[in-house]
């Protein structure tokens, strides 16, 4: 143990004194949070130029109603209440008389106006839009024929399409209601939508017996769980990924044989993993302390899930040990930086897969899929932590079962990694083969 600690201390001190570590502390959150930051910045600085939409109304009755509904929406959304500052672009409309025939030439002409940016898009409303039973298009595999179409130069996820959905539907419903004889005043009552207020569950105080009513939730309650999981992912990624190339580099520089005269391969690997763990704990302490100070300054300390911090650190330790052992074994098996680059994807996969599963797990934190995924050891740390942090939490036994599985997996994985490391560390000039590594892991 003395040798492990001595080598780990050397590795740890060398790495945290490196400029790259200090730079990484600042750059990593920007890389991980950069996407969200970018979205927030873009969302706060939309293009405020008017968006002109042409309407080709083949019903002869919908265009005016659409323009009216759109004007109502413009009045509601374009200017911030209170400041009257414009926050969204205004949609303006022009009607275009439908041409005779199938309208292809007209669509080309309007498309040219879109291409020249005179128009943002054009709408074509077919008479079928007013039919209750949609017409099926035999030429299109029996799917519904288009009843209202929007033509634009943008993708299907363009905001214009989303924005227009409401005024178009509102206008068509008004038409239907009018035909059914509902007076205009009555139509508003029917068409108005009532928001559903999201509330947390009421709780009974175990000591006083009093009931604390549910609180209104607005989505911000997932900020802390998500932040915690992203922090875990970021620290594990930043702490683990360099291990692969560092071991390969030291192997290439023939440092290990000098050390193998003084320490066992297991001691060498354990020291590397311990140093990486030290780095990870240093980074996380830095970020968590920083976050607490910032939130305290913003009087938002209440959103910090202090009760989950012990779990966070337990999962962090297990995750780093598990992945760093794996990285050290892979690094030992590589003979060149190119080999290490090729294998990096194998190492990063257990970190990134849970990252892509965040949304489905948040949508249904106690569903079967979420439960199963969070009990698969390589995915347990981020997934179980996320489920624990979300409102409602998880059954008490699940984190403990997950932890037992993670510890078992970590011990087994580290043992196998040490065997691979021992065999591979002095081999030169051979590209790593998965089958060979499996054999070394089993037989040593």
């Amino acid at each position, binding site marked *: 143990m003395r040798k492990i600690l*001595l080598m780990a201390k*050397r590795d740890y001190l*060398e790495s945290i004194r490196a400029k790259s570590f200090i730079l990484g502390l600042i750059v990593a959150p920007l890389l991980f949070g950069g996407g969200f930051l970018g979205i927030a910045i873009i969302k706060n600085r939309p293009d405020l130029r008017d968006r002109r939409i042409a309407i080709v109304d083949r019903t002869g009755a919908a265009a005016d109603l659409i323009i009216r509904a759109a004007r109502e929406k413009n009045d509601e959304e374009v200017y911030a209440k209170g400041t009257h500052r414009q926050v969204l672009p205004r949609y303006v409309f022009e009607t275009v008389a439908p041409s005779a025939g199938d309208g292809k030439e007209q669509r080309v002409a309007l498309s040219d106006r879109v291409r020249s940016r005179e128009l943002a898009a054009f709408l074509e409303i077919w008479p079928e839009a007013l039919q209750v039973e949609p017409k099926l298009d035999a030429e299109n595999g029996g799917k519904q024929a288009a009843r209202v179409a929007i033509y634009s130069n943008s993708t299907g996820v363009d905001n214009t399409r989303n924005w227009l959905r409401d005024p178009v539907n509102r206008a068509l419903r008004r038409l239907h209601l009018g035909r059914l004889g509902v007076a205009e005043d009555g139509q508003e009552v029917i068409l108005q939508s009532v928001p559903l207020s999201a509330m947390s569950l009421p709780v009974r105080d175990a000591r006083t017996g009093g009931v604390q009513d549910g609180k209104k939730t607005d989505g911000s309650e997932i900020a802390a769980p998500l932040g915690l999981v992203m922090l875990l992912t970021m620290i594990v990624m930043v702490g683990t990924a360099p291990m692969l190339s560092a071991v390969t580099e030291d192997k290439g*520089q*023939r440092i290990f044989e*000098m050390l*193998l*005269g003084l*320490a066992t391969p297991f001691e060498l690997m354990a020291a590397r993993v311990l140093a990486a763990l030290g780095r990870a704990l240093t980074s996380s302490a830095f970020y968590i302390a920083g976050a607490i100070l910032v939130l305290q300054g913003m009087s938002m300390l209440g959103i910090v899930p202090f009760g989950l911090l012990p779990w966070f650190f337990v999962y962090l330790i297990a995750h780093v040990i598990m992945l760093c052992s794996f990285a050290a074994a892979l690094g030992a098996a590589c003979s060149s930086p190119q080999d290490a680059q090729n294998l990096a994807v194998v190492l990063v996969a257990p970190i990134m897969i849970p990252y892509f599963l965040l949304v489905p797990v948040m949508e249904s934190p106690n569903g079967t899929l979420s439960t199963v995924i969070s009990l698969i050891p390589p995915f347990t740390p981020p997934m179980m932590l996320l489920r624990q942090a979300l409102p409602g939490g998880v059954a008490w036994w699940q984190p403990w079962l997950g932890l037992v599985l993670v510890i078992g997996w970590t011990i087994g994985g580290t043992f196998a990694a040490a065997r691979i490391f021992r065999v591979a560390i002095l081999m030169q000039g051979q590209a790593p083969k998965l089958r060979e590594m499996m054999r070394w892991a089993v037989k040593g």
Partner: protein
Amino acid sequence: MPFAVQLSRVTKTFGAVVAVDDLSLSVPEGAVFGFIGPNGSGKTTTIRMIVNINYPDSGELMVFGEPMVPARTGLIGYLPEERGLYRKMKVRQLLQFFGELRCGHKVSAEVDEWLERLDLSRCADRRVETLSKGMSQRVQFIAAVVPAPRLLILDEPFTGLDPVSADALRDAILYLRQRGATVILSTHDMSVAETLCDNIFMIFGGRKVLDGSLESIQAQYGNDTVRVSVSDPGALANLPGAELIRDLGQAQELRIDRSCDPQRLLRTLVERTGVNSFSVAKPSLHDIFVRIAGPGAADA
């Protein structure tokens, strides 16, 4: 006689390759013990087993009378053939790290003493990456000997060294032996083995082919070598009972068979050309090495 290292019928294989085959060997304590053998003959594998990096498949390996276990690695100083150092570390800091790793306590005084001995004191605070190759090799040597080990294993320590650095290293090895250390020296330089080693062991194809003092090894071959210097080296062709085995440029080595009389050979040579020098000697280690492991060895 106490032995620093004893191998008894040790075998080590890597897949289908037998790297060391039923090898028995005893290294006396306090000796400078030369390991020679062609590339791929099993030298490094044998050394790695002694240092406990590789484990024998069969046989017994004892170091100072006890089995080699990880806890005893502190007894051994090891300078591998393929060696590297932490390039970003400062020299003194690095040597203290290696010394402490070996013995478990601070070794500042020993490090300073060795830096002085190998003329590296002025580089003590420089980063390893700024050193020349020769300086790096001397630093690597110190990393293997701080604090003084009971057994020192050096794999090609003189490779790439200039004569001054080589002399400094040679002096250091002799100094360590004087202080009681046993030295195993693996080398391809036969003159180093001849002049520095008390005993010489040669491994070829994983098997022991020579083991003993230089004199005892040479005695096995008798006085079958003639070193001559002649005016016309072409006159050495087709000599009865002798063949040219090595042309050293200014001198030539001939091997004579048992029926050849050196006096008659000298007379023949004088008749053919001018003879500047003529001596009958035991074969050099180089010659013995080539006889065992040279191109014709496999057919022999």
